[in-house]
């Protein structure tokens, strides 16, 4: 039977990763994510799983990708400065279609910034940080049980779509100790596809929209994996038609499967006059605020994105048919608000509550903004 325990947010991630089958961790310490590596260094050897502290973040993600191609489920964890350093290898994982999970416990930025303060200012970097066109999946849990379930889901999505998946976490939650329900093994899905049989080494051969099959090294047909643009065999090719297809294969595996990938939660939205759009720690402020608003007779509701990339466009647009006010609450100077501006119809009024000074919003602040907005 499952049981509510007290765990630090970082430790929930680590435990969930192990529960999802993670059997490789390479990382480099950085506040406020270091506890993940520390926990792994203690627990993984017990399970004969591999832990290594690398010389930097570039090396960490490189090692994870290598291990993944050798059949492991690999995890690394970092924060802003390290995540910036990982961008080149993030692109590699996209290009070669390698499942790997990266935790970014966001802290105040830019640069060294405020290592001990929360922020939600890496939202756009998560989507666009590496060069070239690339698909990205990013999940962003806010409540303790979600930290567990979204971490498991991140591994499943990485395996299914053969793509890097980023888990965003707030500094506040990474460091907090909180009650959490650790579900029984077997009560949640752990996705693992057997390595695919291939003919003619055509490892990337599939139709647009199809999930890539798991193909990795050491399965009796020696394969080639390349960071250069490549053909169905993985061999370098700049042939325009081939490239066209490969680019689409990579992008569309995500966009053909939005229903599977996108997850969100809706609170009090059915009759809402104002939709609060938020995620992570800000969604927790917003939820408290929405409840307070309801008590005061204000019809507010919350749309909490759990998948932040790809953006939950369709679900929001459905809501915008009825709800004509949207308030974006985020701990940055305006990032996901651009997505709302982009997808919300013009008859929907847009308001934001933004801040980037290291303090999360209090529910009262969100409530005030809602009240101003509904006036």
């Amino acid at each position, binding site marked *: 039977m499952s049981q*509510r325990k007290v765990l630090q947010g970082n430790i929930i991630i680590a435990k969930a990763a192990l529960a999802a089958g993670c059997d490789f961790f390479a990382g480099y310490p950085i506040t406020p994510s270091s506890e993940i590596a520390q926990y792994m260094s203690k627990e993984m050897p017990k399970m004969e799983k591999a832990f290594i502290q690398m010389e930097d973040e570039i090396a960490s993600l490189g090692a994870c990708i290598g291990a993944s191609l050798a059949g492991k489920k690999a995890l690394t964890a970092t924060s802003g400065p390290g995540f910036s350093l990982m961008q080149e290898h993030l692109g590699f994982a996209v290009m070669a279609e390698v499942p790997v999970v990266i935790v970014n416990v966001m802290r105040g930025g830019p640069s060294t910034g405020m290592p*001990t303060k929360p922020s939600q200012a890496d939202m756009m970097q998560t989507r666009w940080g590496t060069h070239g066109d690339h698909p990205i999946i990013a999940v962003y849990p806010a*409540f303790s049980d979600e930290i567990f379930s979204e971490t498991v889901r991140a591994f499943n999505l990485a395996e299914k779509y053969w793509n890097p998946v980023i888990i965003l976490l707030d500094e506040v939650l990474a460091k*907090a*100790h909180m*009650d959490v329900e650790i579900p029984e093994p077997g009560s949640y899905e752990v996705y693992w596809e057997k390595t695919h049989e291939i003919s003619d080494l055509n490892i990337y051969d599939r139709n647009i929209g199809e999930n890539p099959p798991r193909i990795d090294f050491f399965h009796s047909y020696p394969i080639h994996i390349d960071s250069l643009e490549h053909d169905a065999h993985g061999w370098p090719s700049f042939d325009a038609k081939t490239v066209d297809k490969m680019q689409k294969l990579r992008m569309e595996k995500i966009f053909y499967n939005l229903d599977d990938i996108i997850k969100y939660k809706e609170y009090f939205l059915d009759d809402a006059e104002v939709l609060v759009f938020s995620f992570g720690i800000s969604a927790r402020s917003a939820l408290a605020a929405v409840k307070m608003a309801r008590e005061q007779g204000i019809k507010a509701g919350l749309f909490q994105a759990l998948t932040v990339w790809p953006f939950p466009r369709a679900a929001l647009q459905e809501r915008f048919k009825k709800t004509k006010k949207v308030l974006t609450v985020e701990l940055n100077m305006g990032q996901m608000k651009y997505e709302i501006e982009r997808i919300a119809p013009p008859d929907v009024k847009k308001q934001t509550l933004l801040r980037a000074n290291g303090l999360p919003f*209090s*529910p009262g602040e969100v409530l005030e903004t809602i009240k101003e907005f509904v006036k």
Partner: protein
Amino acid sequence: MMKIEIRYGAVGGQGIITAGALLVDIAVEMENKFAIESPTYTAAVRGGPTKVDVIISDEPIDFPHAQAIDFFLCTDQKPYDIYKERLKDDAIVVVDSHLVRELGDTRNWKVYHVPIINETKVGAGNVVLTSVVSLALTQKMTNVISYDNMVAHIKHWAPKGSVEMNMKAIEVGMNLIK
């Protein structure tokens, strides 16, 4: 609905982080509550003002930082000055009588000045035990967890060989305010 919000303030802060964590452990694992402890640090590497918020409730907790504080325990002036916000009008406030001297407007708070640090050193023998002393003080003043659970948990949690010291610390805490 039961919901209690507690704040600890100190410099350095390892002690109050432990106090908060213990409180949450007991509330969740022994008393079936929902609870969260969230620490806030400042810039200084060591010895900067730190606060720890603990919320304990019988319903899931939305926002993890305290908004209307029932109980505030603070062992230093600087964190007192910075973190005394968001206290309820009738909050219970316990400050170290040596280290927090300027209280400013105390509204309707019930304020207790007690020599927490000193008594810990003298009575329990090691300043590290401020965590347990603070926990006991909290238990006594708020009753948010039961005394028996606290004792049982500390016995289980304390490293072998230091159980006695920890029990002494509980005693110190229970007796600081009569």
